């Protein structure tokens, strides 16, 4: 067979997929490095450069009230008295413009521009850190959402402000334990317009009039939810905005002189009420500042900005409240809030414009230096220009004196502002911009790869079938796969993915016998006397055989259905699934309190493990005896049971409560390290032996045959039908000898195949046990279901063959391949995994390494093995689909079985290629669908919560699956090679 071309073609196709995924992801996922440093009160950022206690100075405001109205678009805040027929969302917040125009020294309304991604979580991060958060902020802990970067909440708490929070519970996740008092309300249900708002209103006024707070954050969600539910152009939005108007009015009445009121939206919304992207409708929110004491020197001047970037809030608030500016801030202070140089207003204390800007510039420069020393993603030429600008600025500033002319001061201020803006723009270009070109290119490459894969599978199928069927496009089978792909475009289906996949798997499984029956192959054909005599048609198959095969098919279907149903006991729950109870098997054994349940679960897991080892061994025995002395046979004999023993012992050890055997603590500690490592080592050894020596397994049993040469009769257990014909002539002997040898050979071939699957089978279980021994049962189900699938495929093929419809080639139809891929995603869920980052089972990294790791490669691969165990298993075992129908022809007339493949190397390689490309096509189509979902729905409410994690998981699942598919294919080729070599050695003997 052609090994190299097939492997190269597959590799090339995979590489094409990887390239597409990489292109898309690099354009879609904005990545930024987090700087984990915090500013302090004694930083040398003071205007004069002299050290002075920054936080000790009297701040301009003692208290601030931050009213965040989610999705408060700037259009909502505008008031146009000439508008006689306002839309539902127009002119509903008159209080803002009214106050701003009547009391210009006290209030201002700005347009508050957000940076993409315009989702609430990223925005809260943005206007508290002053930075430009992306979807992935590297350095962040994946398992928790807490903000580790320096932020204003941290700084305010640090200088002794008492913080109170009420509203959207996202804050509570972002700033755990930062608030003195916190009243979070669930933000998840988008349908619910009032719970959060009413919850806030119950407490807001009573808290305000009290004296036990310095910073009060209230985050209203009603407007945003109203937008998602009805869109902005709906009477409900009018009501909601009117309510907010009343809230702002009552808050302003209760404000005291030392308090600054900030009313702001975190982002806007599109005309359909969504957000997340970068269109101006989504980015432009409203910002309203108000204080009972004069805040601004006078009415808005010409030089005042219309649009304020969201990053600018952080430095402004910090300096107004007397806190250091957070370390990673790239915003600039809002100048109108600070008195200009020379304007002496006796009542106002604090920094002047120039001083504030200088503090700001030094902080931004410090951040820029730190960041550029950590990451390389800012272009060096713009970095050099910025450095140059800063050194000029500092020289000018330090040379200037309070007595310098207003003109030169203004020049300096403008230069500082220009510096800050250019830093911000540089950062923005690096972090906060989707790259639509790259995204489109990635999509195109992926689509091309899918199409190519499909075409290759069609072409190789046609090759295998001898030129037939090149143009026949399958219509029925991919319906299920396209349903699966379509389901990836809806957030509800992605959330319920485990059940959706099971549903489709069952449907397709049940569809197999229905279609067989439709084609009249499930039952023995009715004896029809009117038919032409038997000579013209292939002889009718024996009804008994057909019936038996049908029963086997239905039995396996029952096994499949039962397995799929039971496997839903092992599902975990997403946070979006309200009434879902996670599987009790997910809890580690050591955490179970009830000792009876613990014992029961342990015994059940052990039983599953035992049964599973037994089944594999049984299968190996079925296709040969395990008593040779070769390395691989030894491995096959001993590795599996030994691994099982290790696992069982380890479960017992890790399940025992720590304080129950105090005197054995040391031993337990050793066992916890040694046992899993032994299991890993054994598995590695088994794999290595298998790879090095895939065929010698059964040389011993064949020993007599090559030794005695052409005496075919000497081969010990000769089936009678061959014995009858041997010994007539050497030629005839040879003719029959080869099938004989084939028959032996297929045992070893099958054995190695099966071992390939078996070995890998064990490995993820090793990973799984650290988290829940219950998963052993899930893996048993997986094994059973895999077997059932293979057998369904085999029975269907043989039924087709029995009734004369078999085309004689080896091509695997779409249905079993689709079933295979569905089962692989189903078991991803049935091993307690979900397509969300918090659900990754990190504990797997510490199995056998309780003390932690030095590097990142080993824990990463352990976690990947744990997460994608089902992808790996189904990927490696995929070539079995090709062999199984041939293996199951046990008692057909000429039982050469999968040796038929060796007789037709051309067909063998094209069938293998076809199978692999079909599998790749299906997996690739799924990746394409989730990529499309992420690209098309990037404004969707759920894009960062549902679609992007799904995309990441789908892409990495594809990576793992394709690599393991390649491993499986190359294993088959390795076996084929070994068989060929062995055969060449044998043949001269036989012809002699």
């Amino acid at each position, binding site marked *: 067979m052609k090994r190299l071309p097939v492997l190269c073609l597959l590799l090339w196709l995979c590489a094409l997929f990887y390239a597409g995924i990489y292109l898309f992801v690099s354009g879609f996922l904005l990545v930024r490095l987090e700087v984990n440093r915090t500013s302090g009160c004694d930083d040398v950022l003071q205007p004069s450069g002299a050290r002075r206690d920054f936080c000790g100075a009297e701040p301009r405001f003692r208290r601030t009230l931050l009213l965040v109205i989610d999705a408060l678009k700037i259009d909502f805040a505008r008031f146009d008295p000439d508008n006689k027929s306002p839309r539902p969302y127009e002119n509903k917040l008159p209080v803002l413009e009214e106050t701003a125009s009547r009391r210009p020294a006290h209030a201002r309304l700005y347009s508050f521009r957000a940076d993409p991604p315009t989702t609430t979580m990223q925005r809260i991060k943005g206007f508290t850190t002053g930075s430009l958060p992306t979807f992935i902020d590297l350095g962040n802990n994946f398992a928790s959402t807490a903000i580790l970067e320096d932020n204003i909440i941290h700084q305010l708490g640090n200088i002794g402000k008492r913080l109170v929070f009420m509203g959207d519970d996202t804050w509570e996740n972002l700033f755990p334990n930062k608030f003195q008092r916190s009243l979070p309300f669930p933000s998840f249900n988008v349908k619910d317009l009032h719970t959060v708002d009413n919850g806030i209103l119950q407490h807001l006024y009573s808290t305000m009039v009290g004296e036990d707070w310095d910073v009060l954050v209230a985050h209203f969600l009603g407007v945003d939810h109203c937008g998602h539910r009805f869109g902005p152009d709906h009477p409900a939005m009018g009501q909601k905005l009117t309510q907010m108007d009343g809230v702002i009015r009552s808050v302003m009445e209760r404000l005291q002189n030392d308090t600054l009121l900030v009313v702001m939206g975190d982002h806007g919304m599109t005309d359909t009420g969504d957000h997340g992207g970068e269109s101006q409708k989504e980015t432009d929110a409203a910002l309203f500042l108000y204080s009972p004491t004069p805040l601004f020197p006078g009415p808005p001047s010409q030089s005042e900005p219309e649009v304020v970037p969201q990053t600018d809030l952080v430095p402004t608030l910090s300096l107004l409240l007397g806190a250091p500016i957070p370390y990673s801030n790239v915003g600039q202070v809002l100048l109108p809030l600070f008195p200009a140089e020379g304007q002496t207003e006796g009542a106002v204390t604090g920094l002047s414009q120039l001083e504030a800007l200088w503090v700001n510039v030094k902080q931004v420069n410090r951040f820029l230096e730190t960041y550029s020393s950590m990451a390389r993603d800012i272009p060096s030429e713009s970095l050099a220009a910025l450095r140059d600008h800063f050194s000029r600025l500092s020289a000018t500033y330090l040379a200037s004196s309070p007595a310098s002319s207003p003109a030169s001061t203004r020049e300096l201020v403008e230069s500082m502002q220009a510096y800050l803006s250019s830093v911000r723009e540089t950062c923005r270009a690096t972090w906060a911009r989707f790259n639509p070109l790259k995204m489109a290119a990635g999509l195109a490459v992926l689509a091309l790869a899918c199409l190519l894969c499909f075409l290759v599978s069609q072409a190789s199928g046609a090759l295998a079938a001898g030129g037939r069927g090149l143009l026949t496009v399958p219509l029925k089978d991919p319906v299920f796969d396209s349903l699966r792909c379509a389901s990836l475009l*809806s*957030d*509800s*289906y992605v959330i*319920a993915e485990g059940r959706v996949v099971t549903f489709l798997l069952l449907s397709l499984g*049940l569809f197999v016998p*229905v279609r067989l029956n439709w084609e*009249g192959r499930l039952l023995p054909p009715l004896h029809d006397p*009117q038919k032409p005599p038997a000579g013209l048609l292939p002889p009718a198959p024996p009804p008994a055989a057909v019936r038996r095969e049908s029963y086997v098919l239905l039995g396996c279907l029952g096994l499949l259905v039962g397995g799929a149903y039971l496997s839903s006991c092992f599902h975990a729950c997403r946070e979006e699934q309200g009434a879902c109870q996670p599987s009790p098997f997910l809890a580690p054994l050591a955490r179970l309190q009830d000792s009876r349940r613990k014992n029961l679960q342990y015994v059940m897991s052990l039983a599953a493990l035992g049964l599973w080892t037994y089944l594999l061994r049984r299968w190996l025995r079925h296709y040969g005896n395990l008593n040779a002395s070769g390395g691989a046979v030894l491995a096959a004999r001993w590795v599996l049971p030994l691994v099982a023993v290790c696992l069982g012992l380890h479960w017992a050890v890790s399940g025992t409560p720590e304080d129950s055997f105090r005197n054995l603590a040391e031993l337990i500690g050793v066992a916890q390290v040694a046992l899993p490592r032994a299991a890993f080592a054994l598995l590695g050894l088994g794999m290595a032996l298998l790879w090095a020596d895939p065929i010698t397994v059964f040389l011993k049993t064949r020993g007599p045959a090559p030794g005695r040469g052409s005496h075919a009769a000497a081969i010990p257990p000769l089936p009678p039908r061959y014995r009858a014909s041997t010994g007539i002539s050497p030629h005839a002997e040879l003719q029959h000898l080869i099938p004989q040898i084939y028959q032996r050979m297929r045992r070893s071939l099958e054995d190695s195949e099966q071992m390939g699957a078996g070995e890998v089978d064990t490995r993820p279980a090793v990973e799984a046990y650290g988290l829940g021994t219950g998963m052993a049962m899930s893996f048993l189900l997986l094994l059973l279901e895999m077997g059932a699938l293979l057998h369904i495929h085999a029975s269907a093929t043989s039924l087709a063959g029995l009734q004369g419809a078999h085309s004689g080639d080896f091509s695997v139809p779409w249905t079993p391949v689709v079933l295979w891929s569905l089962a692989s995603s189903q078991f991803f869920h049935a091993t307690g995994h979900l397509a969300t980052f918090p659900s990754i089972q990190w504990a797997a990294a510490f199995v056998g390494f309780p003390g932690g790791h030095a590097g990142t490669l080993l824990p990463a691969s352990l976690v990947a093995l744990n997460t994608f165990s089902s992808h790996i298993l189904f990927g490696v075992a995929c070539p079995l689909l090709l062999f199984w129908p041939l293996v199951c022809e046990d008692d057909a007339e000429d039982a050469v079985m999968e040796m038929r493949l060796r007789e037709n190397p051309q067909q063998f390689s094209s069938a293998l290629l076809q199978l692999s490309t079909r599998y790749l096509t299906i997996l690739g189509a799924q990746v394409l669908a989730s990529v499309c979902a992420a690209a098309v729905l990037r404004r969707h409410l759920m894009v960062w919560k549902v679609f992007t994690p799904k995309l990441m998981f789908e892409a990495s699942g594809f990576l793992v699956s394709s690599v393991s598919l390649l491993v499986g294919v190359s294993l088959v080729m390795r076996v084929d090679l070994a068989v060929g070599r062995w055969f060449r050695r044998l043949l001269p003997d036989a012809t002699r």
Partner: protein
Amino acid sequence: MNVNPRREDNCFSFFPSTFNLRSFCIPIMWDHEIKAMASSHAIIASSVFMATVVPAVFIRGFSVYGTHLLWLSSVTGAVSVVNVAVFWLLGISQPTKKHTIGYKLSRLVRSCLYLLLSCLFYHTVVVLYGAPLIESALETFSLAVLLTSLTTLRCLCVLGPNVQAWIRVFSRHGAMSVWDTSLQITVACSVIGAWLGAFPIPLDWDRPWQVWPVSCSLGSVIGYLTGLVVAPAWIHFHRKQLTYKCK
């Protein structure tokens, strides 16, 4: 020469005995059957509508979503009764060779047994597909009964209590009369309708018809109605290609 004695009876019972059996397969003759089928299907379909409309007049608060179980049982009852009556009147259903009471009784008992088994079968399948196991068992079982009345009952009416024949009908060359073809179409439509009905359930639209099992039972009833309409039309337009093994 005739393979299937049931067909023979069927032909005789439907047409006067003067007809030659071979003429049964000539397309012209089908027009009568298609007309008979269309009118019987119209009666069955109208029974579904009546079962939806009439209780609304008599029972206060009756609605398809609100009192779903009531609607389900009314539709199930109406479809069952009308089906049995129509097929009995048309005489499609009895391959009665023996006219003994005992034979008829055993057929009746077997039919009831099959109906019960079919309900249990559908219930199991629906649960395997992901319906809650315990909580809404009554709803699930009502759906199973509805599906039985839409599919199995029709099989019973057309083919009698003969599972082998049921299985054989659902193969490409298994239909032996226009009634068999219409059976294929209606059964497939109702099952596919129920299957499609499961699709909107996970969506977060919060509509009353997304509650289990409303969408599935609605889907199966709509599928059934579609099948009733499609079957005569399809047979009418494909009557040239249709050849039944009727010798």
